[in-house]
């Protein structure tokens, strides 16, 4: 743990630093969370307070109407399930193929590495909005329009570049002789990968998993274009539909947004423990 012990100026300096540190932490947390708190307030006040000008800081007239509406909406419940499936499957596929590819690039020897990496990166150069139509045509031909598969595939394609590049960066940090040590013990390339590299690169792997999951969870453009049947749509498509032809129900959208954000945060809370524990997982012996 870093601090100012080197200069030995004493506990006074140290506690000032700690206080400053905690002040900054509190500010960061407040700034990060404030908009969510505001949106939460939007979801629990009456419509007239929602549109009050000037806006009220603390909620004055509470109403649970938005929450009962959203929680009881079967379309929304189904959408939550769809979002989970899309995000979950995308993450697993990306991790699986991505870590294989990244490992090969980072630790094994073969030509064309730069070419491969650049090809993979190339998809990140193209604005998604421009290729919606041809993708749609492609998927229609494949017959997967209106299925979760179309969105999962597209999300995977767009999430793989970051996954691979990130894991390459992480795998490269690991000491070179790890595999050799494992091989001396009789492991194959694949086994060395599974049993030695992956656990040590766990912080990177879990971070990539979280980022990919959140990306797929929040993805809107492809889900909106490829999915027509409401029973296949994820929350990003369903939430803007809390509206009529003439007007938008911001209160309900606010409630839905909170419902959608909180589980993600809990998910990260759960996973971030694993990020830390990855560190303590065995070092090279001897």
């Amino acid at each position, binding site marked *: 743990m870093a601090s100012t012990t080197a200069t030995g100026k004493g506990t006074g300096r140290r506690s000032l630093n700690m206080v400053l540190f905690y002040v900054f932490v509190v500010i960061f947390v407040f700034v990060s969370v404030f908009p969510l708190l505001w949106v939460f307030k939007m979801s629990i006040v*009456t*419509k*007239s307070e*929602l*549109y*009050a*000008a000037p806006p009220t800081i603390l909620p004055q007239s509470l*109403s649970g*109407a938005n929450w009962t509406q959203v929680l009881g909406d079967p379309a929304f419940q189904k959408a939550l399930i769809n979002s989970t*499936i899309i995000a979950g*499957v995308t993450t*697993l*596929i990306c*991790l*699986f193929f991505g*870590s*294989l590819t990244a490992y090969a690039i980072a630790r094994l020897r073969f030509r064309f590495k730069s070419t491969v990496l650049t090809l993979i990166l190339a998809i990140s150069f193209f604005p998604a909005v421009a290729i*919606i*139509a041809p993708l*749609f*045509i492609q998927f*229609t031909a494949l017959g*997967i329009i*209106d*299925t*979760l*598969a*179309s969105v*999962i*595939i597209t999300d995977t394609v767009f999430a793989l570049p970051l996954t691979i590049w990130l894991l390459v960066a992480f795998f490269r940090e690991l000491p070179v002789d790890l595999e050799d040590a494992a091989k001396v013990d009789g492991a194959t390339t*694949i086994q060395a*990968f*599974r049993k030695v590299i*992956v656990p040590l690169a766990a912080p990177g792997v879990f971070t990539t998993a979280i980022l990919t999951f959140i990306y797929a969870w929040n993805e809107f453009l492809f889900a*909106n*274009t490829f999915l*027509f*049947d*409401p*029973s*296949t749509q994820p929350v990003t*498509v369903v939430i*803007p*539909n*809390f*509206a*009529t*032809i*003439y*007007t*938008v*129900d*911001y209160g309900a959208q606010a409630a839905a947004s909170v419902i959608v954000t909180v589980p993600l945060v809990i998910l990260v809370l759960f996973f971030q423990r694993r990020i830390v524990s990855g560190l303590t997982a065995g070092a090279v012996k001897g």
Partner: protein
Amino acid sequence: MTERNEGSGAFAGRKLNRRDFLKMSGAGLAGAALLGAAGCGGGASSSKLIFSMGSIIPTYNALIDKFNKQHKGEAEATLRAMPSNATTHYDKLTTEFQAGGGDIDVIGGDVIWAIQFAAQGWIQDLSDDFPKSEQEKFLPAPISAMIYEGAVYGIPWFTDAGMIYYRKDLLEKAGFSGPPETWDELKEMALKTAKDTGTKNGFVFQGSNYEGGVCNGMEYIWTHGGEVLSDVTSGKVVVDSPEALAAMETYASMVADGVAPEAVANYDETTSEPVFGAGDAVFLRDWPGFYALLGIPEKDGGYPNIKPEQVGIAPIPVAKQGMHSWSTLGGWNQYVNAATDLQDEAVTFAKWMTATEQEKFLATDGGLRPTRKALYEDPDVTEALPGVELQKEIIFNNAKSRPVMEYYGDMSLELAEQFNNVVTGDTSPQQAVETLQKDLSNIMQQAD
């Protein structure tokens, strides 16, 4: 779904399993969706129709059920929900059309989509199934908005027109006996009433850079005697005229003279209505449906603080006394996909949906204004639609279609932008009119 653990292990067998899982889940979900959508009943011989519509209200579901009951064994319709946002909805439809037509048979679409879809050959010419004798039973404005090259391309379903809402009680307090007839009167009344009664804003409207802004702006141009195109579906661009210029000057003066707050440049329906609903505006320009929200509890989406008795409805003001008032036509119609295999069934569905009985149900159950003239004499309808007596004349006589043509998408972008610039003051009325003349002429040239 089976449990699976983290992706370690690179054996070919497991790779295949993942792919199979994807295929299975995709197929399974598609199957489940189809099953769910198929609903009840329907024998092997009945055709499965798909009807698409946005912003679903339970009324549509009820209509679908009724159709299925009445046409059991022949046709079975399912409702496909489209996005509530009009731009996203349009985008989704065009994606399907571009990919070869898609599987939607009947499309519930905005009135301004008719010409655009027709010009690209995406929807069916319904002149044979919807002859003039039938057309006469409907309001003229929605029909005229669907005529392309002499043929009619849809059947009107429900309609809308712009109008002015005003606070009768506040006007009375300020000493005015009735609503304004001219724009100058509106400005005068708004300023004085707001001042005398302590109301925050004189006039609010939808001035943001979107289709609603076009609706607002067009009303100014028409009520000043101007036009954008010399006739609705083709013709010359005539927006560079003294009348249109005067219109834009009036439009700009709303904010410049303090009649309306600067905020109107960012308002749409959702953000302008609450201002009036909170009692913070004397005048509001909006669609007919707003009246039904007055005095209704909040949980039903209403504005309980302002009662219907306090509010009057007036036609859009005109430039000079005696001129004809015009309102932008809104509304949704039934279109038939040109690529449908179920031609006859689709037309049957469209005609059924627009039959007297169904339109009446739309009004009594859904609060939507019918497009059949006779229904406005029906006491059940007038009872179910708050304010419709006051709105009837506007809907019948004042509704005018926006200058829709093949490239209305481009036109709309231009109009929306320039109208918004006029409201914010970023462009002078003169500049706006000149820019519109130039850019719209460009567009019209490419249309030939």
